[in-house]
């Protein structure tokens, strides 16, 4: 899966589960998703959907607002989990 594929899949998860009042594709990679309107509970839905999409599991120490704050931070976390470095 290329970086673009990962980003596209993250955007799909956000579109389906983050309940953002804006178009996900319009957001910059480093735009703050919480400031854009994602609630804490929506971030849980996003986390679980990411686990399904990428066949990963977020450990407790990665369940932080900073991990789910931007598309870029999510992509970084997914990359770490896929590489088995967490």
């Amino acid at each position, binding site marked *: 899966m290329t970086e673009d594929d990962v980003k596209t899949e993250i955007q799909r998860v956000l579109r389906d*589960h983050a*309940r953002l009042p804006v178009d996900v594709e319009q957001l910059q990679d480093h735009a703050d998703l919480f400031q854009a309107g994602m*609630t*804490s*509970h*929506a971030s*849980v*839905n996003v986390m*679980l*959907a990411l686990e*399904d999409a990428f066949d990963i599991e977020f450990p*407790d120490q990665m*369940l*932080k*607002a*900073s991990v789910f704050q931007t598309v870029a931070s999510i992509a970084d976390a997914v990359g770490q989990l896929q590489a088995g470095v967490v």
Partner: protein
Amino acid sequence: MPIAVGIDLVEVDEVEAALHSHGERYLRRIYTDHERHDCAGDPRRLAARFAAKEATMKALKRSHDPLPWRSIGVRLGAAGEPALELSGAAAALAEDRAVSSLSVSLTHERGVAAAVVIAECGR
């Protein structure tokens, strides 16, 4: 005695969506055994407990990087009154903040659930 207050609001349909999409995995990752038992899958009651977790983090001044969800739980007393149970990282943070008691109140109505938490600080 100084107090700290936390409040949070959760839309019940977000919980319904999580139950629909992720079912038992959602429940196991977020809620304690007591919470799952007490709520019996009722999304309104689950939403109130999620709000209690967030409100507790705010009362403990930990709103940016959340504590593990299951380290904060609501347990019902003999008369059905809710009380907070902390474990692990949440209990350690409460100790660090010199919290001597925690009180919680829950409510849900018309698609939203809310919780208020009051922490009394000082030994």
